[in-house]
């Protein structure tokens, strides 16, 4: 933690963001002997100051800077200033993620080939595949100690899972279990097993859930090769006359601006801030923003097809007790166009406390139809739907010049319209989710609309050809060889699975590549 690099040191790699992408990359590079300065927009929080309180935690760790929304998605109506529910701080959104750690299915790397032409969708095959990623997935699963992989046992099922599992089995679903979770199913040397506390989204106070913030960053810092500069928000990436990037302008906690020189810059600010930074870095040489010769920066924003199903019963469930998301039905994750849509979805247990349930069950609703549901809170079970959404060029993060942030820079606008395939899939999932609960005697079921996006993907997509995307198969920008993208914005398509494991696997792979290219003198 003590290392400090000179701002004029142009030999360091600057990583922007310390979440599951940037945090893992920074730590991995440091462990390979590469000098890294990680710029983190937020502060440092951890198990010692996380709080078991939904709104207090939201205020403590969320990214709350001004953002706007447009498009026909319901989030734009319900939460117009909050398109995404993500974290600002060391560890990024791995602080509040649920821990679900699933590999892509093989076909999900090649959706253009497998799904064929889908009107209005900009499907594209990834330039990598399941075989390429297999060893990196294994490394990621080891790093995250993912349950039900590498011989690790699953978590025990809580009450919410028991209802979910019973309904799923009655319905004939086969692939039902307590998930592959980056949550310890036993004690390890440094970290304890899950204590079934709940509040996974508020940061795990036991440190039993993997976070880049307290599992990866300290390992990197201990090498003496990693300096994490907190409260340091990147504003602009600079380049020289040859087009190579040379450093990053950032603002410190007092708003004072600095330049950190860099040999390589890796952008990992999440799929809203990463394209925003590239767009805000426009120059006379790159008038449309950095790495944007394709015009694809900010486009193909994906957020997963999501929704929730809650149900009330005539007996208590107490769904808030225990691990928030340790339960999954995978039978619908397959690609089976006979259901009326391409791609698939996962059903995963989920619970919210009363404060968030009031805000999210049916935003805007009031009166007895709504309150009589909350009155049954103790008897309520819940699940989340997460499925592959269609990439669309018009779904995009762009700059809102009408609203400036605290540094005077244009804020991001997030535009999203559901694709007909997303809507068909969501309706199918609502029906199946309700059927799961009806099978075990639900009194009422509630098809709950999407929350602000937790899975923000795809705004700097990976592509084989430079004209189709922003980065190549290494996450290196097609246009600028010492500029990389290291977060979920690389995603070519979204797949049905929660994205963090894939983001981590890509970061591990990218760290190998960058270290190797540096040692060869190629960058």
């Amino acid at each position, binding site marked *: 933690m003590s290392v400090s690099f000179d701002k004029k040191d142009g030999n360091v790699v600057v990583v922007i963001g310390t979440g599951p992408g940037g945090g893992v990359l920074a730590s991995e590079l440091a462990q390979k002997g590469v000098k890294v300065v990680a710029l983190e927009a937020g502060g440092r929080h951890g198990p010692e100051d996380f709080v078991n309180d939904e709104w207090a935690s939201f205020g403590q760790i969320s990214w709350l800077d001004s953002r706007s929304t447009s498009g026909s998605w319901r989030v734009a109506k319900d939460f117009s200033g909050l398109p995404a529910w993500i974290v600002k701080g060391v560890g990024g959104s791995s602080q509040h993620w649920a821990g679900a750690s699933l590999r892509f299915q093989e076909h999900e790397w090649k959706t253009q080939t497998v799904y064929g032409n889908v009107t209005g969708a900009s499907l594209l095959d990834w330039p990598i595949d399941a075989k390429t990623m297999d060893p990196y997935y294994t490394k990621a699963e080891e790093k995250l100690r993912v349950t039900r992989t590498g011989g690790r046992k699953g978590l025990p099922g809580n009450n919410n899972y028991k*209802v979910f599992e019973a309904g799923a089995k009655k319905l004939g679903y086969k692939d039902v279990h307590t998930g592959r979770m980056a949550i310890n199913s036993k004690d390890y040397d440094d970290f304890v097993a*899950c*204590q*079934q506390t709940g509040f996974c989204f508020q940061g795990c106070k036991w440190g039993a859930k993997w976070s880049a913030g307290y599992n990866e960053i300290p390992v990197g810092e201990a090498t003496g090769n990693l300096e994490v500069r907190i409260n340091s928000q990147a504003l602009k990436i600079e380049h020289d006359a040859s087009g190579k990037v040379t450093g990053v302008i950032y603002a410190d906690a007092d708003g004072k601006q600095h330049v950190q020189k860099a040999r390589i810059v890796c952008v990992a600010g999440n799929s809203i801030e990463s394209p925003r930074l590239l767009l805000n870095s426009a120059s006379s040489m790159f008038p449309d923003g950095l790495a944007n010769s394709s015009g694809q920066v900010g486009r193909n924003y994906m957020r997963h097809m999501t929704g929730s199903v809650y149900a009330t019963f005539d007996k208590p469930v107490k769904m808030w007790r225990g691990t928030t998301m340790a339960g999954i039905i995978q039978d619908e994750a397959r690609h089976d166009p006979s259901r009326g849509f391409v791609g698939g979805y996962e059903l995963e247990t989920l619970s919210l406390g*009363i404060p968030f349930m009031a*805000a999210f069950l049916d935003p805007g609703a009031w009166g007895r139809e709504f309150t009589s549901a909350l009155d049954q*809170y103790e008897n309520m079970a819940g699940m989340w739907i997460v499925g592959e959404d269609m990439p669309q060029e018009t779904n995009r993060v762009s700059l809102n010049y009408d609203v400036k942030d605290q540094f005077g820079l244009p804020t991001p606008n997030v535009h999203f319209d559901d694709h007909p395939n997303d809507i068909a899939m969501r309706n199918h999932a609502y029906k199946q989710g309700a059927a799961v609960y009806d099978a075990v005697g639900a009194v009422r079921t509630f098809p709950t609309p999407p929350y602000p996006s937790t899975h923000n993907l795809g705004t700097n997509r990976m592509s084989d050809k430079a004209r189709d995307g922003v980065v190549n198969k290494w996450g290196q920008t097609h246009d600028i060889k010492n500029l990389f993208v290291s977060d979920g914005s690389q995603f070519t398509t979204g797949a049905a699975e929660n994205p963090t494991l894939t983001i981590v696997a890509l970061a591990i792979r990218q760290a190998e590549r960058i270290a190797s290219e540096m040692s060869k003198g190629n960058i």
Partner: protein
Amino acid sequence: MSYVKSLTRRDLLKTSVAAGSLLVIGGGFVAASNAAWALEVTHLKSSTMATLIQMARDIYPHDNIADEFYAAAVKGYDTAESKGPVEEGIAALNAAATGRGHASYLATGWERDRVDILRSMESSPFFQQIRGGLITGLYNQKAVWPVFGYEGESFSKGGYIDRGFNDIKWV
């Protein structure tokens, strides 16, 4: 909540007029008719605060939650800054009530009739402000969580690993 001290039921009945609901409106305060609690009102008219409390209950009616908690959820509007828009909003609410033949919103006896009045102004910024504010104002009061069975913070108790995370028997 800022309670009026030493108020007896007798005092209440002497000095105030009962509202249509179970609230008692006095000079500078609103109270429960059984004197269980009272809320000082500084900037708003007492009748406005009482109407606001009833409106809050009609928006998010929970029969097991006492008025006291609805009062706590809206007491933050009793400020110099909020006074103008809130008095105006409540006046509009009362105008909608009188337009339907009721003496006032509070004097509208049936919830369904009050809800009809609220529906008629559902899209107004005033209604949306009050409704939106209640989401945290009402449901984030730790004191109401037990009504829903919600147990809140659990880390200090060691989580639920030994306290029933998987204790249901009916499935």
